[in-house]
């Protein structure tokens, strides 16, 4: 007989919007708010799993509606143990809406909640359940390197991050109109943090192939680990050609919304470091698949943003090199990500271990039952 305890009896969605003040920026976009479409699943035995996706400030309501009106009703009374099967069913359900960031972010919120529930059910931390390749992974700090930070602030924060906070890798946004300015910013930071700190740069898809080739040639002088998204994410031929012009590792993947897109990148030799985004690729199931795909091609992975969640994926697989440190969710969490020097450590509680602070969520709630407790004593 089926295990009735694993049937999903509660599926709630809500939308949180945390303003980013002042707004962050990169070469092509403003980052004015963090939107969190959050999903909470409850099974018949009273166990809860929490999942979420994120946006950089717009489209959250579309994701929320998709969850509330289309996806969550279809989750009720399904067997939570059949994570992959259930996700496949849900994906098909909204397939005609075209695969894309909105659909995959909505699906991700459910997928993450299902995996969280799986961990809770098994009484096991999720990174172990998913493979447990390692129990720590290096962090690189992106928070210091926003493109709209004045140079002095950039240098001071970088120095502080390395000397005070123990980070040994920093990522700087590039893409200022004038390449000299980009070079100056990287040079000053390199000067401040010394030769042993890993530096990477991120152009956020702002260049064309000719710009990229010339600019990367100038930037190579500062001993960088990778150049991230120099070209439009879909320009796979461009990425492949760029590989013939630079020794810098080409990183990317945050703008790919399916495992198939990763497969294509790998097949065409477009990227050297793959950066699946747990939300945008459709959840943990797909993120892990992308990581394994990369492993098969002998490529490293560095999951994009959301360190609290990415650390679970990164520690589950053997080919991860970094997770990205942007502590943007901390304001609604009960506890920050676990750090030890330059390493991020996964939580050791069953599931992914991310605990939202109800009162904080209430403060930032946009949609959904205004005050639904996410962390109850059931944990």
């Amino acid at each position, binding site marked *: 007989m089926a295990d009735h305890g*694993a049937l999903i009896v509660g599926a709630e969605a809500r939308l949180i919007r945390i303003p980013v003040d002042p707004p962050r920026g990169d070469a092509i976009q403003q980052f004015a708010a963090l939107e969190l479409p959050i999903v909470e699943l409850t099974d018949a035995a*009273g166990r809860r799993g929490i999942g979420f996706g994120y946006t950089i400030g717009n489209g959250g309501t579309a994701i929320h509606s998709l969850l509330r009106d289309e996806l969550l009703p279809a989750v009720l*009374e399904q067997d939570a143990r059949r994570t992959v099967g259930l996700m496949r069913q849900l994906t098909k359900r909204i397939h005609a809406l075209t695969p894309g960031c909105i659909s995959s972010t909505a699906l991700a919120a459910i997928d993450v909640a299902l995996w969280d529930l799986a961990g809770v059910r098994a009484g096991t931390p999720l990174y172990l359940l998913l493979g447990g390749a390692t129990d720590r992974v290096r962090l690189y700090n992106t928070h210091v390197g926003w493109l709209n930070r004045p140079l002095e602030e950039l240098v001071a924060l970088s120095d502080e991050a390395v000397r005070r906070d123990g980070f040994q890798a920093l990522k700087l946004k590039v893409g200022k109109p004038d390449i000299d300015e980009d070079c100056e910013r990287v040079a000053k930071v390199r000067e401040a943090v010394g030769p042993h700190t890993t530096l990477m740069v991120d152009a956020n898809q702002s260049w064309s192939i000719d710009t990229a080739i010339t600019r990367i040639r100038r930037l190579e002088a500062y001993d960088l680990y990778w150049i991230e998204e120099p070209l439009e994410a879909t320009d796979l031929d461009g990425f492949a050609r760029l590989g013939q012009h630079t020794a810098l590792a080409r990183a990317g993947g945050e703008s790919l919304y399916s495992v198939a897109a990763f497969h294509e990148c790998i097949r065409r030799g477009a990227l050297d470091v793959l950066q699946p985004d747990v939300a945008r690729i459709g959840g943990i199931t797909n993120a892990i698949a992308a990581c394994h795909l990369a492993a098969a091609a002998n490529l490293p992975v560095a999951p994009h943003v959301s360190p609290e969640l990415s650390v679970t994926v990164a520690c589950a697989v053997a080919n991860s090199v970094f997770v990205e440190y942007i502590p943007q969710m901390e304001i609604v969490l009960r506890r920050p990500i676990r750090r030890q020097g330059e390493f991020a450590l996964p939580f050791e509680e069953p599931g992914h271990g991310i605990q939202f602070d109800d009162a904080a969520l209430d403060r930032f709630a946009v949609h959904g039952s205004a005050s639904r407790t996410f962390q109850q004593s059931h944990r």
Partner: protein
Amino acid sequence: MGDIAKDLRRVMRGDVRFDRGSRAAYATDASNYRQVPIGVVLPRDAADVVAAMDVCRQHDAPVLPRGGGTSLAGQCCNVAVVFDFTKYMRRLVVLDPERRRARVEPGLVLDTLRDAAERHHLTFAPDPSTHNHCTFGGMIGNNACGVHSVMGGNTVDNVEELEILTYDGSRLRVGATSDSELEAIVHAGGRRGQIYAALKSLRDKYADLIRSRYPKIPRRISGYNLDQLLPENGFHVARALVGTEGTCVTVIEATTRLVHSPPYKSLLVLGYPDVYRAADHVVELMACGPTGLEGLDDRLIDGMKKLNMHPQDLRLLPEGGGWLVVEFGGDSKAESDDKARAAIAALKASPAAPTMKLYDDRRTEKLIWKIRESGLGATARVPGQAPTWEGWEDSAVPPASLGRYLRELRRLFDRYQYACSLYGHFGQGCVHTRIDFDLESQSGIDRYKAFMDDATDLVVSLGGSLSGEHGDGQSKAQFLSKMFGPELVEAFREFKTIWDPRGRMNPGKVVNPYRIDQNLRLGASYRPPRLATHFTFPDDRRSFAFATARCVGIGECRRDHDGTMCPSYRVTHDEEHSTRGRARLLFEMLEGEPLTRGWRDDHVREALDLCLACKGCKGDCPVKVDMATYKAEFLSHYYEKRIRPRSAYAMGFIHRWARLASYAPRIVNAIARAPLTSNLAKAVAGIAQQRSIPSFADRTFVQWFRSRTVHPDAARLPAQKVLLWPDTFNNYFHPDTAIAATEILERAGCEVVLPARSLCCGRPLYDYGFLRRARRMLLEILADLQPHLEDNASVVVLEPSCLAVFHDELLNLFPDDALAKRLAQQSCSLAEFLMTRVQGYSAPRLSQSILLHGHCHQKALGGVGHEECLLKEMGATVTVSDSGCCGMAGSFGFEANHYDVSINVGELVLLPAVRAASPDTLIVADGFSCREQVEQCTGRRAVHLAHALKAAGRESAVQKDRPAEEQMLPAVARRTFPVELAATVLIGAGVTLGALGAWQWWRR
């Protein structure tokens, strides 16, 4: 037409209902036809009828007088102003036992007169099976008959005088008319003289034809009773109007004949190899002078077996495949028995003697009659078989031809591939059949028409009557010329024209009739929407639409006595507040016209509002209409994404509030009891101010259970494991009940376990349509109980309404879930568990007089048999309260807008019974709400069976003058809650904090 309602309202004192809901409720009778009326009026008295008729005439509106609305031939639905007499004009005006006469209003229910007359050993002989709710107006309209027509004829033979109103406003008193009277009336002229003159010339013109063409059989119901105008019948104008089905006049008052009713009856049942051979012996038996002679076949009995109806009673029948039920009457038991024995002796001598059984105790006789009266229920909706319909359901032939008729009719059925049972008033040659016509496709309807053509030919060829009981209406009128010839049909038309020259009385029925395939309620275009529902309706092809078509219109829900169904109708006497009215509205809701708003229709909600969700209908309705379930389904959609009334949250989620209150029960109780705060709390929660809020216990049952030192006996091995269900009521309010049950179960050698989590069956949620939440709670229960259920542990449920969730709603919501089925099978009441699942249980002694009241849900789903047996085994003298709902019905009676109905329902049966009980009688009621109703309305305190078991075995006798519960269970009886002065300050702060906290907690 718009102004007609306004004009009616201006002149009438009774009700004028032209809203869509009322029109929908009266759109059909008990037939296959449906015509939405213009409006409904409920006159208060004769003057009101006259005033309403004037207005109708001014507006040239058709008029349809209506009784109980149980017509089977379509004569009680029409596009007309319906005059419903049953709410106000239901008086027995005069009962004159000396002259054996009664004067009645048209809305009077037959049994009201029969009960009153029976005291004088008199009765009104024609007794249709609807006798407990059919009205005189309807019986006169239809020329109704029944089992005892054998003894005293049909309605036409029992009406002496009528006071009538014609469409043109003439009010006449009509009856038998001597030649001189006739002459005087004609001479006096006026409308009356004109009518009588016309009747006389009609009679003279057709007398010979009437004499030659009217079949001389006991059940010639088809056609007008023009024979009553013949000189040999005394020019009986009243009787000529009997059976005109509202097509000629409106009856305002009737004077009826009463006949001697033999006070003693003996019942003989004869078993024959088949129903045909049973029919062959009818004439032989009629010679023995029975007061009733009914027949039934094995298909009927099969249907009853499939429906699990009266399983014990069926064993009472003698061997056979066809039966005759013969009743003999006498002024003494010896006399009726002698007649029966004489019949037995006579039959024994004949070749091919039947198997015979003579019953002479009233109880068994009642059960046998129940089998016969269950004919409709046993044939209308049998699982796995197509639904059956009226249409050819009451044909009659000369009794001597009955055997032949039945054989030929069966051949006809076979030819058309119809499967149906044969039963009916065989003594008078009348046959009841519900046939599985397909009325939902054109080919099916064509087949039905062809069959009707052949069947009418068959009956006419045998000298019979198309209708032998239910009238012509629309379903048989088309064929009248076959039976009477075109000249007599013309005579009917002339007769109607004399009374109703403008043709406004129930047009299109009997005379100038609609075809039998017009106005069909289903019809070839019937395509009800397939609605997504929470309940799956496994017995209704998993279709809500099919469920709403379940009601056959027989109107059992409109009776005033016996059983539970339908308490709200018993109080309001409004069609919309009967099970039938509600079922009709739900059907009409799916039709989309006149009810247009679907799940959001306020008329439907209003009709359902007074439904107590007692499930009385599920138990009592012949076709098991389950209104409580439909109501929950409807409300869940009606309130989808809407805010419900406050009481829904206050009481629907009582399990949550109770859990919250259990943190500080004393403070909550103080608030709930103190003068001002209690008023405020009740107002906020939507609770009636007259009610008191039940008190929360200091310590819940679960707290008690978990903190106690284990009973030494419980360690004994091997013990039978029992899961005791800690329902919200017995856990938070009356933990003493559950504690008592724990002790009893442990004493019986069981190991008692509780669910791991705090759970609730969700019963109150159904009342408000919170079905998503209810589903969720059931899944949580299944998850928690899974290991116990797979261990085969029994689940003992103390609260009957919670047990009903596991036996009923659970399976309707999860019909394919194996674990749900296990929970339904493994859960039972305390009494059932002790009586059937504990080996060698020895009940403790309790010599005590006990009034046992069953919760409605208990009665609807199996009854209180186990409780009664257990108490009797203990040595108690048990009186089972004469059924009926207590009126509280869960949270219903607590709600401010239902308080009056709740009290009135309680006062119908239970509360008077409790007050009448002697103080030393212990009142046992397992339902929490029943106990609350008793306590809040009578001052007595009812106890749960568990209390009675706990109190058993005590030494001292109970004193006669003090309430038994106080002496036997002082702890239960004494529940006081001191409100100290200091608490008042606390309360003020408490209310604010509590409300805030509750709000926060609610939103979690």
